[in-house]
């Protein structure tokens, strides 16, 4: 049996947090592994576009290759088979890698709330649509309605316009006065303000605040959306609907490793250390805070992971200010209750198993609903319907079992690598 390949620090996730962690740790000579499911590093915000690494992170990534960082691109961590070992599925099949310290920088995913028509083809996430454009989807002359909540809405609206899409409207569910508050909050954060303004000019005419999608219509794919504002409904024709309601953290790998979860997020201390010895967490899983907070958290985690506690401590102040910013965003983009009441009894909630809202009202927990209706039992294992039922019914999410995402059976067929002594 092959001997286990062990690293000083393994970083899972090559987004802003993971890149920062890997860089910080490698800066002090540690042997680092950086693993990401995508074929190229960058994560969601700096996702590679048509096969080339995003300009914003190119330098950082070039830097990594000069240091002792081994990249595992296109590799999914699908289980944590024993203490200090992760199991990957990637271009070389199943691989076990060992770590002394582990940084979980696994990010988040979009929150989807069911409404009639949300399962139609061409109705997708906001980040989802952007990711597809980066992967080569041609949106020139396509009419895209962008809807949901949060800064991503505006950023993607602008991105789509830049890529030739026609964006008839952008629907922000939060009311205008809170958005104004959010704008005022931006002033304290110089790095953010540039982002804010460059978005503003493009989108001001298209933005409708306090407005949300009620339903999507179409026969073979989305053809129009009906949306609501100020007590009235309107209809807009479109080729794509990009709609999501912010982010939820990816806590499944931390959960599998036994990390304590608090109010839905991975609990960490000042040093980004989780409740499990040697396991750090940074970025979205510890709280949805955006790219800058993720980066500073990643850096702190990477530094502490190799014993550079003082260097890490110097960053605590910076982290605190980004956290304040995150809290102001949370307040500004709190979800309105009307969004929880959009489904009709026949609206599908669990897309994998086609479980409808009406089938779920009888159950008191996600576990009973799962056992009796198969809600959350499909291949996404509740990644999409879990957060939705949490918002809709207050259900806590179910248990996590390997594999974390679907892998070929043969990936499970390999005995564990030998661990020296």
């Amino acid at each position, binding site marked *: 049996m092959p001997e286990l390949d062990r690293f000083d620090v393994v970083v899972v996730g090559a987004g802003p947090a993971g890149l920062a962690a890997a860089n910080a740790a490698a800066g002090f000579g540690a042997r680092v592994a950086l693993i990401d499911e995508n074929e190229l590093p960058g994560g969601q915000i700096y996702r590679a576009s048509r096969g080339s690494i995003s300009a914003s992170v190119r330098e950082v990534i070039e830097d990594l290759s000069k240091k002792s960082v081994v990249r595992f691109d296109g590799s999914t961590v699908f*289980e944590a*088979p*024993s203490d200090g070992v992760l*199991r990957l599925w990637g271009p070389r099949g199943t691989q076990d890698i060992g770590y002394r310290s582990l940084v979980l920088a696994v990010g988040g995913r979009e929150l989807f709330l069911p409404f009639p028509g949300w399962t139609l083809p061409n109705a997708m996430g906001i980040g989802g649509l952007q990711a597809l454009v980066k992967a080569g989807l041609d949106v020139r002359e396509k009419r895209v309605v962008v809807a949901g909540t949060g800064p991503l809405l505006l950023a993607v609206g602008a991105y789509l316009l830049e890529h030739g899409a026609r964006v008839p409207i952008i629907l922000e569910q939060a009311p205008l006065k809170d958005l104004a508050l959010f704008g005022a909050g931006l002033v304290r954060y110089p790095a953010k303000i540039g982002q804010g303004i460059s978005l503003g000019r493009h989108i001001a005419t298209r933005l409708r605040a306090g407005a949300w999608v009620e339903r999507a219509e179409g026969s073979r794919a989305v053809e129009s959306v009906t949306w609501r504002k100020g007590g009235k409904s309107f209809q807009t024709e479109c080729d794509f609907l990009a709609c999501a309601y912010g982010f939820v953290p990816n806590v499944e790998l931390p959960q599998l490793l036994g990390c304590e979860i608090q109010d839905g997020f991975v609990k960490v201390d000042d040093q980004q250390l989780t409740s499990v010895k040697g396991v750090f967490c940074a970025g979205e899983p510890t709280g949805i805070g955006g790219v800058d907070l993720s980066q500073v958290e990643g850096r702190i985690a990477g530094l502490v992971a190799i014993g550079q506690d003082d260097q890490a401590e110097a960053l605590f102040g910076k982290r605190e200010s980004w956290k304040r910013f995150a809290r102001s965003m949370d307040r500004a983009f709190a979800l309105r209750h009307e969004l929880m009441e959009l489904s009709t009894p026949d609206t599908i909630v669990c897309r994998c198993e086609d479980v409808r809202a009406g089938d779920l009202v009888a159950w008191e*927990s996600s*576990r*009973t609903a799962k*056992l*009796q*209706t*198969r809600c959350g*039992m*499909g*291949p996404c*294992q509740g990644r999409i319907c879990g957060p939705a039922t949490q918002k809709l019914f207050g259900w806590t999410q179910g248990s996590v*079992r*390997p*594999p974390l995402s*679907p*892998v*070929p*059976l*043969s*990936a*499970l*067929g*390999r*005995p*564990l690598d030998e661990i020296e002594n």
Partner: protein
Amino acid sequence: MTEVFDGIVVGGGIVGCACAYYLSERFPKVLLIEKGPVGGGSTAAGMGHVVVMDDSRAQFALTQYSQQLWNELFPQLEPSCEPRSTGTLWVAADEEEFSHVDGKRKLYESNGLRAEVLDTKAIREAEPHLREGLPGGLLIPGDSVIYPMTAAAWLLDQARLRGAKLLQGRAVVKMGQGKTTLDDGTTLDAHFVVNATGDRAQTLTPGLPITPRKGHLIITDRYPGYVRHQLVELGYLKSAHEMSNESVAFNAQPRATGQILLGSSRQFVGWDPGIDRNLIAKMVARATEYLPGIGSLSVIRTWVGFRATTPNSLPLIGSLQHDPATLVAAGHEGLGITTSLATGKLIADIASGVESKIDRNPFAVSVEVKS
């Protein structure tokens, strides 16, 4: 509040639900107490293969009787219970195993069950994804597959329609002599109380010879038609009976959803809920020996469950000698989905003092239970 129940059933797994189902036919005041979700114990972890098993005469009688009862219920079951007549295909790995197939056929046929020997060509026609060159196997067409959790809930729903009551979210901390004490201190009275708490039955009735035996399962994405029958290697019984610490046997079930549910493993490791990756690897290797292409199928989840094992592999169904008001319906090892209905019938027969269709003696709780 001095209501006296005819019977209380403790435990809402498939066995407890089946007891409530048949008891409610004969007694107006039946109460089932379940601490968690109905069907959320071993019932939620098992495969749902309804199978006539020939490991002993008593087991054969119990499983055959139970299968008849399932067949009677099939037309009434909700579609969500996913009743499917898949049959069982016992697969011989080599000529040695194949040489026993005809004896097995005779045994099933002499008990009035259909059984068909498949040769090397016929078995590949029946299951095109099986490895080429297997000598053959035995097809038992009467076996079937159900979805245990919804079936348990359905049985309980029927009982409730006949007037049975459900008390959910309360654990029983003590039972005996017709008294049942809940975790909030309440005591309930009944003429008889059934301990149907599965692999935990020995906590409420100390001294029951039940040991948990862990099993791992693997489920794939949907591949309708990839496997058509419940496939079980002929060596399965050997693996089930070996009281060794660890054994693996090939067992593949086509779910109504088109998914494939892969078993099976047996381990004595207490109630350790962790997943043993090396054991999973052995299960995958075993499955690949029989279904060489299965490695490319997408897996979505693995999990474990516990079988309530008894020394002679037979369930304990009967009353305690020193406390006739206490009935036990537990220890169903890897067959409780199948044998739940016969168990419910036997319990109802005992409670109402009538003879049963099959001999109850082999299942009697004859061990001396200290209280």
